[in-house]
């Protein structure tokens, strides 16, 4: 592979790993859809829950994280210049640690020693090497993340008193969010799960481990979302021929995500015992605050669409709607993702609402929600990025035919997602559980009803999954083509990394770039939201639980 820069090789390594796990994960997704709809049965050696674990880990954790790191490394290289040898080496160390951890965890899952789903709730007890693999993955991601922050710090040192590039700024916010969030999962894995699974301690505090998990689990979804938002804010205006609506507000949005996406894990634990109602309620309030930066993002996107359309001569209230480049996959993919994100955001508010969660908690509704947030808004933005990022990194061309196939790929994805997730939401409202193999519960009329609706019918799951599978295989093919087979670009014809200018030249308030302040406030919020309840969980803990292997 010919690449001009060593930084691009590092970024490409992450992207390559991402698509490898995308390939594995989407095959598992098809199998699950087919089983859940009652279309086929899996052989005994390949049980449903092992496939489900692989699907969740591959797509939700591995595809997303590797892709994000590849995108961020490419972007900070493009906007803040060549990385120092030390920074680049740190980036590689992180990459290899993540890969080693991943392979260890994958080996444990495939040998049936860790069929615990990607949430690995104790007291289901996986092999200790599964948890060690996870820890290695997380620590590796910290090492690579610190490399990015170091690159940003170097840039700041060389450019005193200048506002950092928006891409670098948002990268730092995203990595800080990730590192702070991972403290929770690191605590439960290192202090509770590893010693317990080795038998060094024989019992474990379940509620505490769940709480530490969800302290991490919710910001995790924002860690997936923020890089998609970066693409929306920074690149999409350029692609549609417009400008960034407001640079400062974009920065403020990211700060708000850092503050409000961490101290909110209890909204995943609303229907469980051991947490006082008032603490659950307080975290619900903090959770709903995350709606504000998402609303700002929605506004900025449509404002950019409108002003770029008007600058091209659009008339009337909605004339600009016709001026958008729908045939450009770099735009079409994230745009369809944005449309999915509207119902996804509303669903998110419902899930987080104090009493409404009871109706949908752990039903197929949640799986539907998950698929239109991460599986549509985030994944489709990543597809849009991949189509130019891969040839940008490998020095190849992106032809018109590729663009057409890319459009076909994202349309197949959108159709599949729409069919599958709509039905998941509806069947979930009727009470069908998530993360459950095909079952009619002894032909109980209530369970049989889940197969009879016009919209709410589990048979739509395999139909949607089939569309998604075709789309994903096309994506994998296009990735391989763009990475290894497409014609090399001539020097003056290289694929660009789209970066937009802000609409108004304005000075950004210095406070926005004072990370010490934001991290400080973040820790205060975490302490407020978690201090007393965690103290209670330890003081009034029931006797701990031994481990179980129930699969």
């Amino acid at each position, binding site marked *: 592979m010919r690449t001009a820069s060593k930084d691009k090789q590092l970024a490409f390594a992450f992207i390559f790993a991402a698509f490898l796990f995308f390939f594995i994960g989407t095959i598992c997704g098809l199998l699950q859809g087919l089983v859940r709809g009652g279309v086929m049965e899996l052989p005994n050696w390949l049980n449903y829950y092992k496939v489900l674990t692989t699907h969740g880990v591959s797509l939700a954790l591995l595809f997303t994280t590797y892709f994000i790191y590849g995108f961020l490394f490419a972007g900070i290289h493009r906007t803040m210049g060549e990385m120092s040898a030390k920074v680049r080496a740190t980036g590689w160390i992180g990459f290899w640690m993540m890969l080693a951890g991943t392979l260890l965890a994958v080996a444990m899952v495939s040998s049936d020693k860790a069929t615990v789903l990607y949430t690995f709730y104790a007291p289901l007890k996986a092999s200790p090497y599964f948890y060690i693999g996870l820890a290695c993955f997380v620590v590796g991601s910290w090492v690579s993340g610190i490399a990015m922050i170091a690159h940003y710090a170097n840039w700041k040192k060389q450019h005193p008193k200048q506002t950092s590039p928006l891409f670098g700024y948002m990268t730092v916010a995203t990595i800080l969010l990730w590192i702070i969030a991972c403290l929770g999962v690191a605590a439960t894995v290192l202090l509770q799960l590893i010693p317990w699974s080795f038998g060094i301690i024989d019992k474990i505090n379940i509620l505490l481990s769940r709480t530490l998990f969800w302290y991490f689990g919710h910001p995790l979804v924002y860690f997936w979302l923020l890089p998609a938002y970066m693409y929306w804010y920074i690149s999409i205006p350029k692609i549609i021929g417009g400008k960034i609506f407001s640079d400062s507000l974009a920065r403020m949005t990211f700060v708000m995500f850092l503050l409000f996406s961490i101290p909110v894990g209890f909204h995943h634990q609303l229907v*469980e*015992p051991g947490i006082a109602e008032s603490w659950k*309620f307080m975290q619900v309030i903090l959770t*709903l605050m995350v709606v504000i930066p998402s609303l700002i993002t929605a506004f900025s996107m449509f404002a950019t669409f409108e002003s770029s359309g008007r600058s091209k001569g659009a008339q009337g209230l909605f004339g600009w709607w016709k001026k958008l480049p729908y045939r450009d996959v770099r735009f079409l993919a994230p745009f369809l993702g944005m449309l999915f994100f509207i119902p996804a955001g509303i669903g998110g508010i419902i899930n987080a609402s104090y009493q409404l969660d*009871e109706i949908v908690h752990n039903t197929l509704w949640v799986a539907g929600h998950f698929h239109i947030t991460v599986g549509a808004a985030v994944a489709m933005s990543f597809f849009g990025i991949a189509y130019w990022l891969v040839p940008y990194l490998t020095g190849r061309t992106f032809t018109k035919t590729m663009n057409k196939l890319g459009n076909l790929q994202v349309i197949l994805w959108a159709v599949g997602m729409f069919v599958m997730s709509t039905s998941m939401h509806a069947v979930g409202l009727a009470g069908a559980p998530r993360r459950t193999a095909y079952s009619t519960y002894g032909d*109980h009329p209530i369970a049989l009803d889940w197969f009879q609706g016009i919209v709410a019918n589990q048979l739509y799951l395999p139909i949607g999954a089939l569309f998604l599978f075709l789309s994903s295989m096309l994506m994998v093919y296009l990735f391989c083509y763009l990475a290894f087979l497409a014609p090399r670009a001539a020097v003056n014809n290289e694929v660009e990394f789209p970066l937009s200018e802000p609409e108004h030249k304005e000075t950004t308030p210095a406070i926005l770039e004072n990370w010490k302040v934001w991290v400080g406030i973040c820790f205060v919020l975490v302490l407020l939201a978690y201090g007393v309840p965690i103290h209670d969980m330890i003081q009034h803990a029931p006797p701990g639980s031994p481990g*179980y292997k129930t699969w």
Partner: protein
Amino acid sequence: MHIHRYEKYWLTFGFLAIVTFIVFMFVTAFSHGHHPAGGTEVIDPTKVDQTPPFDKPGVVKTGDNEYDVYIVAMAFGYNPAKIQVPAGAKIRFHVTTRDVIHSFSIPGTNVNMEILPGHVSTREHTFKEPGQYLVICNEYCGAGHHMMKMDIEVLDNADGK
């Protein structure tokens, strides 16, 4: 920092919407008592079968039209596997587990609890309609997770006969 006029309108609208949601939730939660399932009672998860009242799980009549129901969840079923309760009565479910995390969810109702080892989850419910209700586990608990269920028969006269 410059904020566009329309952006200010939009932010105000969004913020007021969220505050309205929160006020509604607060009123229904703390003045009407609409809290999701919970409970602060703890139990030794390895000794559930010897700890009263879970040593004899089942339905206990506690008042004129009130019942306590004690249920033990386990991989992969509930004890008892079937109960009968009258329609219109105030039923208080108390559920715990003797092994891993399960759930106690009755499709078509708001009863949807996570069951954690060491804790007792509690929720009150009144079945308005008589009929056959299904209880399922919707928290992954192992290879037989999708088999885990129990039946509730809701009878139509107040005496439960």
